[in-house]
């Protein structure tokens, strides 16, 4: 509004007052410390996992007894383990296992849990009760116990760990989905959609899913950090990935025996697990802020 030109009142009626869309997603991401740092950590881990498919500084499985238990030295940035294998290479290979197992576990939880939650929210009544009580029962079985049971039956492997964690995740996804979906279903814009003839399935597809996507994504990143932790714990207990395949949990387990000789063997995997879990937690927190409030104006 310059000093010389005045809008006539008719002009002042509408257009001038529309608010701008607000910062774009990438910009909001970068401005949010949690999302940014978390994002970087997660990216590094994913990169390590991908890169390790084609290259690692040394062969993670390459035994070299003469180089055993050396601290950081000549090419081995983080030292060597009890078999002379390069620690850094094993950590990178381990990130592959961890990423694969965690993502798969979360996917299992999602693929079963989200539809279950949706059905419970949309149908309500007896069906909802059945679904949610089943979820409660599943919830009562911690991933660890389920894993022990499965290992006893099927033998220790990454797949066993992954499936047992995935099953343990289903109830959480079901609950979060149902609760978020109920919120959307109760809103007036869904009511409005019914007044112009939108059918139930179309309402779920066009209105419910887009509005709960953010919540589910945040939940998924949170579950990923939990999956990493649980998977490492299972490996540590010998219930998951079997040696000699490199995995962080397993490195934690054997590293214990060499604490007096080379503390690094225990610290590096511990630190890696810690940073990975932290990274996903930060990402999840940051995503929650980046994705939601803008659209709730």
């Amino acid at each position, binding site marked *: 509004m310059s000093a010389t030109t*005045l809008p006539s009142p008719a002009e002042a009626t509408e257009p001038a007052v529309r608010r701008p869309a607000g910062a774009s997603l990438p910009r909001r991401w970068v401005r949010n410390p949690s999302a940014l740092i978390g994002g970087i950590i997660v990216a590094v881990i994913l990169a390590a996992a991908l890169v390790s498919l084609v290259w690692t500084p040394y062969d993670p499985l390459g035994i070299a007894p003469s180089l055993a238990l050396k601290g950081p030295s000549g090419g081995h940035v983080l030292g060597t383990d009890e078999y002379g294998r390069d620690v850094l290479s094993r950590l990178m290979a381990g990130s592959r296992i961890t990423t694969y197992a965690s993502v798969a576990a979360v996917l299992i939880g999602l693929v079963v849990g989200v539809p279950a939650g949706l059905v419970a929210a949309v149908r309500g009544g007896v069906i909802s009760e059945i679904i949610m009580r089943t979820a409660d029962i599943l919830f009562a079985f911690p991933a660890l116990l389920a894993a022990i049971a499965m290992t006893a039956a099927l033998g220790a492997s990454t797949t066993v760990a992954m499936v047992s964690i995935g099953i343990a995740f289903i109830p959480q996804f079901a609950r979060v989905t149902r609760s978020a979906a109920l919120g959307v279903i109760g809103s007036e814009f869904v009511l409005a959609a019914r007044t112009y003839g939108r059918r139930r399935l179309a309402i779920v597809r066009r209105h419910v899913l887009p509005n709960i996507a953010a919540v589910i994504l945040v939940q998924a990143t949170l579950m990923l950090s939990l999956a990493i932790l649980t998977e490492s714990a299972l490996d540590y207990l010998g219930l998951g990935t079997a040696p000699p395949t490199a995995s962080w949990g397993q490195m934690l387990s054997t590293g214990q025996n060499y604490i007096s000789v080379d503390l690094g063997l225990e610290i590096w995997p511990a630190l890696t697990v810690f940073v990975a879990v932290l990274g996903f937690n930060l990402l999840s927190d940051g995503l929650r802020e980046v994705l939601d409030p803008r659209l709730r104006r």
Partner: protein
Amino acid sequence: MSVLSVTDLTISIGETPVVSDVSFELDRGERVGLIGESGSGKSMTAFAVMGLLPDTMTVSGQIRLDGSNTLEMTEKQRCELRGNRVGMVFQEPMTALNPTMRVGAQIAEVVRIHRGLRRRAAWQHAVDLLARVEFPDPAAQARRYPHQLSGGQRQRVALAIAIACDPAVILADEPTTALDVTVQAQMLDLMSRLVDEQGAALLLISHDLAVVDRMCSRVVTMYGGRIVESGETRKIFGEPRHPYTAGLRSTSAAVSLDSDRTLSELPFIPGQVPGAGRFPPGCPFRTRCTRASEECATMPPLAAADERLLACWHPITPTASLAAAGTDGSST
């Protein structure tokens, strides 16, 4: 003698002022109404008086309660004033009460904090207050929880909390807006009676001109965080000089039980209230004012004229007031 005196109050969020140079006074027993649409700064002003603005806002000026400037007080000192010398009633009865506490306990809490009464005495005081706000069975009422009460009943409890310690000033921010019309009438009568009984001053914020007309002897019109007109209610509503007041008056007269029904199109102030920080420089109302000119790029001073305070370069003069100037009845 004034019980509440606000001088040059300015509230900003960062660089953006949301309330600018607001000054007014309340004398003992006086009732002043603060009117304006949403975004005019009225609620901010009330919150500033209570010292309830978030730290992200910078406040300057003076707010004198009982002679001392609350803006220079510590939080502890302000806590001693809230509920004690100043009582506040908010708009939403649902959220103003703690759902997990019995209503009697919530009223009692105020007296325990400020008067140091023991539990039993405080509870009795609460029951007495519930009787004063016209609950037929106050002892039973005190034991109920907020969710067991209707909106009107909850608002009466809120009023009881506000007057519990005999405050000198009562702030009411849209106290009846969320209530049904029959309940609203009862509530206004009740507030009137209580304020008179206590000799307290009342600052009533409302977007409903009829409510202010009924309750308040003086009215202050705010727009864009500034006072644009203020004076005796009868004068301001009978012969508004500021185009904004005139516009509000005109629209509310057209949508009233006394209006001419043959009028198919309602007069309205064109446009809408800009968001915070989006008011034009100079007179904030100029983008919606049919009387605006180049002069309005400079903010007119709030000056005494025609038995009121007015901030306008082109006030509506007595002859023009008959033609409902300042509003635009043209189509959207």
